[in-house]
C-alpha cells in the first residue's frame, strides 16, 4: 500500500511537469513576434472582449491563432436553466473498513468486480447567472471488488444454519463482493467555470443484487479468543463464508463529483461515493468492522 502511494505521487508529478513544459512552449512562441501579437491583441480587444485565452503565432506561415475564452453562455442550456443527459463509466473501489484496521496487514491482491455504472440525470440551475443548481440522477451501479488480504487476529465468526465458528483469524482472507444497485443522487451543483461543474450531495442506494462471500486459508483460527483452540487452515483446507443475504437492502451515502465539458454536449466526469454506514446491519456481528462502500467512477457523459 505504501508503494501505491509512491506510484500515485510519481504519476501526479509526471502530470505536473508535463503541464509546465507545455506552458513554457506557449511563452516561447509569444516571443516570436511580440509586436504582431500586440496588434492582434488590441484588435481582438476592440472587436470582442478581453477574454482572450491565448494567441499563437506561427513564424513560418504567419498564421495567427486567437482563442477567446469560453463564456458561461457557451456551455449553458437555453431551457430556462434545465438540463439533462446520460453518463456511463467504470467504477473502482471496495467495501472495506475505514480506515483499514491494524488487523489487516497486507493487501495481496485487489481488483474491481463488475465495476460499471450508467445514469440518466437532470438538473436545474438557478439565479440570473445560473451558476448554482440542483441535480438528480438515477443510476444503475455495478460495484464490486475481489480483495485478498493478509490479516492478523481478525475477529470473525461464521454462522450457517445455527452452526457457528467464531474467533480470531490469522492468515489470508479473500473476499468477493458485488452490489448491483439503483443509486439516486440528489445534489447541489456549482458551475465553477464554463466547462466545469462540481456536485456534492447525498444518495439513496437500493440493492437489487447482493453478493458478499469469501474464504479464509493459509492460517489459523483461535476459537473464541486468542487463548482458545487453534484450528489450522492450510495445505488447501479453507473455510468459506457467504454473507450475501446479510447485506442491507438499501443504504445512504454521499457523493462528490465533477463534470468537465469538452464540447457543449459531451464531457468527462468523475465521482466518489462513500456510504454513510456499513453495508451490513448494526446487529450483524460476524464482521466486527463497519464495512463502508467506497467507490470511484470515471466516465463520459452526453447532455445539455
Amino acid at each position: 500500500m505504501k508503494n501505491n502511494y509512491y506510484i500515485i505521487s510519481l504519476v501526479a508529478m509526471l502530470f505536473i511537469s508535463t503541464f509546465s513544459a507545455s506552458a513554457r512552449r506557449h511563452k516561447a512562441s509569444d516571443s516570436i513576434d511580440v509586436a504582431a501579437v500586440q496588434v492582434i491583441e488590441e484588435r481582438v480587444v476592440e472587436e470582442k472582449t478581453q477574454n482572450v485565452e491565448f494567441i499563437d503565432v506561427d513564424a513560418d506561415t504567419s498564421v495567427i491563432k486567437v482563442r477567446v475564452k469560453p463564456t458561461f453562455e457557451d456551455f449553458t442550456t437555453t431551457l430556462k436553466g434545465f438540463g439533462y443527459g446520460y453518463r456511463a463509466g467504470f467504477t473502482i473501489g471496495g467495501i472495506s473498513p475505514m480506515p483499514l484496521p491494524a488487523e489487516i496487514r497486507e493487501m495481496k491482491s485487489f481488483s474491481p468486480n463488475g465495476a460499471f455504472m450508467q445514469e440518466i440525470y437532470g438538473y436545474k440551475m438557478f439565479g440570473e447567472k445560473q451558476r448554482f443548481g440542483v441535480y438528480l440522477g438515477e443510476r444503475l451501479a455495478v460495484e464490486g471488488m475481489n480483495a485478498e488480504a493478509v490479516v492478523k487476529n481478525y475477529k470473525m465468526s461464521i454462522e450457517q444454519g445455527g452452526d457457528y465458528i467464531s474467533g480470531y483469524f490469522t492468515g489470508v482472507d479473500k473476499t468477493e463482493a458485488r452490489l448491483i444497485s439503483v443509486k439516486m443522487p440528489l445534489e447541489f451543483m456549482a458551475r465553477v467555470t464554463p466547462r466545469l461543474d462540481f456536485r456534492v450531495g447525498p444518495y439513496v442506494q437500493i440493492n437489487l443484487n447482493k453478493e458478499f462471500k469469501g474464504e479464509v486459508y493459509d492460517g489459523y483460527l483461535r476459537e473464541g479468543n486468542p487463548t482458545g483452540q487453534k484450528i489450522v487452515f492450510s495445505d488447501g483446507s479453507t473455510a468459506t463464508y457467504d454473507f450475501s443475504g446479510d447485506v442491507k437492502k438499501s443504504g445512504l451515502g454521499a457523493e462528490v463529483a465533477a463534470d468537465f465539458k469538452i464540447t457543449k454536449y459531451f464531457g468527462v466526469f468523475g465521482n466518489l461515493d462513500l456510504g454513510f454506514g456499513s453495508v451490513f446491519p448494526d446487529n450483524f456481528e460476524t464482521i466486527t468492522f463497519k464495512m463502508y462502500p467506497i467507490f470511484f467512477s470515471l466516465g463520459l457523459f452526453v447532455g445539455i
Partner: protein
Amino acid sequence: MAKTTNKQFWRLIPALSLLALGASSCIQDELPNSECDIEKVIIHHPDPKSVFYRLSDSIKIVPPADNEIKFEVRSSADLSLMNIEYVLTEGATRNNVSEYMSDLIKIQTISEDGKWNRLYTISFFVPDDSYTREKKIIELNFEDHRLDDGGKFNIWLNDDDANYWASGNPGFRLSKSSAMPNEYPTIVEENGYEGHAVSLVTRTTGKFGEMAGMPIAAGNLFVGSFDVSQALKDAMAATLFGRPFQLRPMRIKCMAKYKPGEKYRRLENKTLVDVPGMVDYPDMYAVLYKNTDSKGNPVVLHGDDAKTNPNIVARAFMTKEVAQSISADKWTEINMPFEMLEEIDEERLANRGYNFAVVFTSSFEGAEFSGAEGSTFTVDEVRLICNEDEE
C-alpha cells in the same frame, strides 16, 4: 482548441487522484501479538536417560488448547537437576506462579499486547509399571464417560484417565456446534451388553463439514488422542493412535451390534455420490507398534498409516466377512487373535517402547468421508488378552 481542453482536463486528474488517495487508507503498524501459548517445553538434564523412558519424551510440543503439560518420567528420576526451557508465542512473557514443588509447576503466560493470559501446569508423573510376563486380561467396558469441559459431547475414561480413549467428537463440534451430545458421531448407548456401551454413528456434518470437504463423519473411538487443531486441515493427521503398552497382546474380543445406514454415499470430487447397492460395514483393528524409530524419534500412527506402518509388530484386523456378519439386533461376539509380525523385544516392552491402539469405526471408508448416514456400530465389553492366549 483541443489543446486548451486537454490542459484543463488533465489538471483535474491530480485533484481526482488526491481524492482517491485520501479515500483509500494505508496499512497501520502491526499490533503486538495476542497469543500467549507455551508452544514447547524442553527438559534439560545432565542424565536424561535416568529421567525419561525415551529421550524424545524430554521435548513436549504442547497442543494449542492444552493447559496441562505432563511429562512421563522414571521413578528413579532426580528432577532437582533439571532445567526447563519454555518456548512461548513470540513476544509473550511468563511468570512462575509456583516454582518447582511436589512435581507441579504453575506458569502464567502473558501475551505481548498484555491483554491475554493463560495458566499452565507442568507436572511429572511416574506411569504405573504394568510390565509382567503373566497372563493378563484388560477389560474395557465403556462405563465411565462424561461430557467434555464445554458440555458438548461425551468423552470416555479408562479408570480415571481421560486421555486414554479419544474420538472425532471434538472435530465434529467444529462443524456442528448446534449438535446435542447424542447427535455426535460417538455417543453413549445406555442399553449395552452389560451396563453402558459405546455407539458409533455415521453422521453428516452440515454446511461447515461440506465447506471443509468433510461432509461425512463416521463415529470412531480409539486409544490415543485427537488433535483438534488439525481436524479441518487434515483429518487423518488429527487422529493419533496409541498409548505406551507393556504387555504382549494375544487376542482381542468384544460384543458388537451393527446396523448399516440406508444410503451409501462416497465422496468423489468433493461431492457425495450415491453408490446404489453398496451396504456399509464397520471396521475394527488393533495394533502394537514400536513408538520410536531407529534414531530415537517418536513414532505415532495416524489415520492413514495405522494399518500399514512398518513399525507395527502385532496386529488384529477385522475381516470384511466378520464385519458384515454382525447382527443389528443381537450381540455378536468379535474374537480376533493377534498376528505377530515381529518378535517382541522384552526390554523395549518393559521400557514403554511399544504403543497399543485399538480403533473402532462405524463406516469402513469413514476415513475417506464415505459411508451411509445412520450406520451404527455398538461396541461393549472389550477384552484384551495378553501374554498368554486363552484358546
